[in-house]
């Protein structure tokens, strides 16, 4: 399968994420959009890794080039999981305190 499809899919996912972050005010949806962007990047990493690996193996069957990217993906997943737990905890605390998850409510530092 050509790499183009993967790139277009990843860019589409990322753009949806950016648009969601920019336009929505609900903290949970923004959070989900951030995850969407993260996973778009993950998808790209895996796709490029596979591409490089395939090219390298054709030249040298013992090559492992490009496989590091897949490890990175696992890293990103683990870190994202940790981040999700912290982020959701913040959102829960936010809801407890102001009974809302609207981020435009949180502009008290301005005053």
């Amino acid at each position: 399968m050509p790499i183009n499809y993967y790139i277009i899919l990843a860019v589409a996912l990322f753009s949806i994420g950016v648009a969601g972050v920019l336009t929505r005010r609900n903290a949970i949806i923004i959070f989900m959009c951030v995850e969407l962007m993260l996973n778009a990047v993950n998808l790209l990493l895996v796709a490029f890794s596979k591409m490089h690996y395939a090219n390298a193996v054709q030249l040298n069957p013992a090559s492992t080039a490009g496989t590091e990217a897949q490890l990175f993906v696992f890293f990103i997943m683990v870190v994202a999981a940790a981040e999700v737990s912290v982020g959701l905890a913040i959102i829960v605390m936010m809801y407890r305190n102001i009974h809302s998850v609207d981020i435009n409510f949180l502009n008290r530092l301005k005053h």
Partner: protein
Amino acid sequence: MVDYIWLVPLFPLIGFLINGLGRKQLSKSLSGIIGSGVILASFIISLLIFNETRAEGFTAVTVNLFEFINVAGLNIPFAFQVDQLSVLFLLIITGVGFLIHVYSTSYMNAEEPHHYARYFSFLNLFVFSMLLLVLGSNYLIMFIGWEGVGLCSYLLIGYWFKNTEYGNAARKAFVMNRIGDLGFLLGLFFIIQQFGSLTYTEVFSQAQGAGVGILTVITLLLFVGATGKSAQIPLYTWLPDAMAGPTPVSALIHAATMVTAGIYMIARSNILYTLAPVSQTVVAVIGLATAILAATIAIKQNDIKKVLAYSTVSQLGYMFLGLGVGAYTGAVFHVMTHAFFKALLFLGAGSVIHAMHHEQDIRKMGGLAKKLPHTHWTFLVGCIAIAGIPPFSGFFSKDEILTHAFAANPVYYIIGLLGALMTAFYMFRLYAMTFRGTFRGTQEQEHHLHESPWSMVVPLIVLAVLATVAGFVGIPELFAPDAHRLEHYLAPVFAVSAQIAEGHHVPASTEWILLGVSLIMIAVSILYALNRFSKKTETDEATGFGKVLANKWYVDELYETVISKPLNGLGYVFNRFIEKSGIDGIVNGVGRSVQWGGRQLRLLQSGQVGSYILWMVLGILIFFVITLFI
């Protein structure tokens, strides 16, 4: 013993620390004993060292204490040089200093205990600095002492700091000295640049190879320093004002020791001056001009200490005249005799002021001879000594300088003699108005008149004896061949200069004539002054030319108009236009522009998370555009 030379300045330093730090705890008698005792200890050590230096064939010893500055090829050790010149000054400083300390224990007795201890700590610090000045083996140590004595002079002039006028006098002395010090410092830089060292022995051994031009510059700059410290034209005006300090301070600092630092410095650098004839002429002319100018002013002063102050300026002028005509021994000799008789006169004046309850105007004195017999006799001895009547000490030293001046240029001699006549005149005017005639003060003052206590009288008597006999160490060739013991003693210090400079010689017959003429004229001048002022005194204000003299030739006013006022005006202009609008404008402008910028940028911080993210995304997009298309 010479190796223990560091003990000499160490004792006064210890005294300074004890008195200075313990001033709240020490009783008056204890701080007086400590203050005087440390000087006595220094004096005893100085005497022992002096005994060694008198031995035949003694050569200068350098005592290295520690490495002080060693950078970029310039090595300045903290070292003391023990030779005839420095040891002679040691004796004068510690000897006269000790007498004045003892005198002070009574004179300052009315002070509070902690002020009393402060006084002695300053006095000890002064002696310490002065000892550093004369002991240093290089110009830097001399400069440290030079600044130290300036500081102590400032502190002691302003000792009664609650009086604004005294504080101003102290500041004036300090500023005037600073002007001179700047010249001195520049001189040191030139020495470093030319010789690569500040150590006397190294500089002097290279001096003969240096150009006359650079030596002239160096010596003139050093002389500027000397005019500040030793109160010569044009920087002399601080010394008369310095009389604001306690009288023993005037005796020690402003008559006997500190003001002779300039003479010491030039005598120490005699080789440089001998090699720079132009500077020698400048020194001689300035010295002579100061001698005569100060003498004219002294004639019309009515404050007992002011007369003595101008007399000091005048005598210092004679010393510089001596240095200028190459009579280095004569100048140092005059430093020594002057230290004795001028300290004596100041302490005598202090005794009078003490008796008169701080009245210093001689128009309100008179007839004190009976009430203060010891003070009277010792003061008279001082007057005779300074007037130059043989066999008192002033005669020998002044005669030596004047004879050399005659050999160099008869005009110097004539003007110098004129100054000497005026000296005799104003001193005996002072004497007659103070001790002769009838008492002119209030009845209450007369009732309280009393002779000073023994601790004040004994130093007077000792100094009177010294002022009488000190001249015999320098009997001129004219009276007895090879009897000038001081010249013999100091010969190694001035040996090189004596070789370079051609010796002037005055025939013995001429010398006898000069001596006879000057003695007769001085005697006439004394008799006239005694006759003129014993019975009727000039109690009314001076008029005509006398008024000019009484107002010190308006030199202070001249400086005020020519220097202070334009400087103040310039300062006002700079303050108004450059400081306020220029520099402050830049500083305030920076502050204002930052505030303005902050107000504008503040609008970006809307508090809307969405807008922040929008900016972020826009920024990233711009980066993309830049990296992809440019």
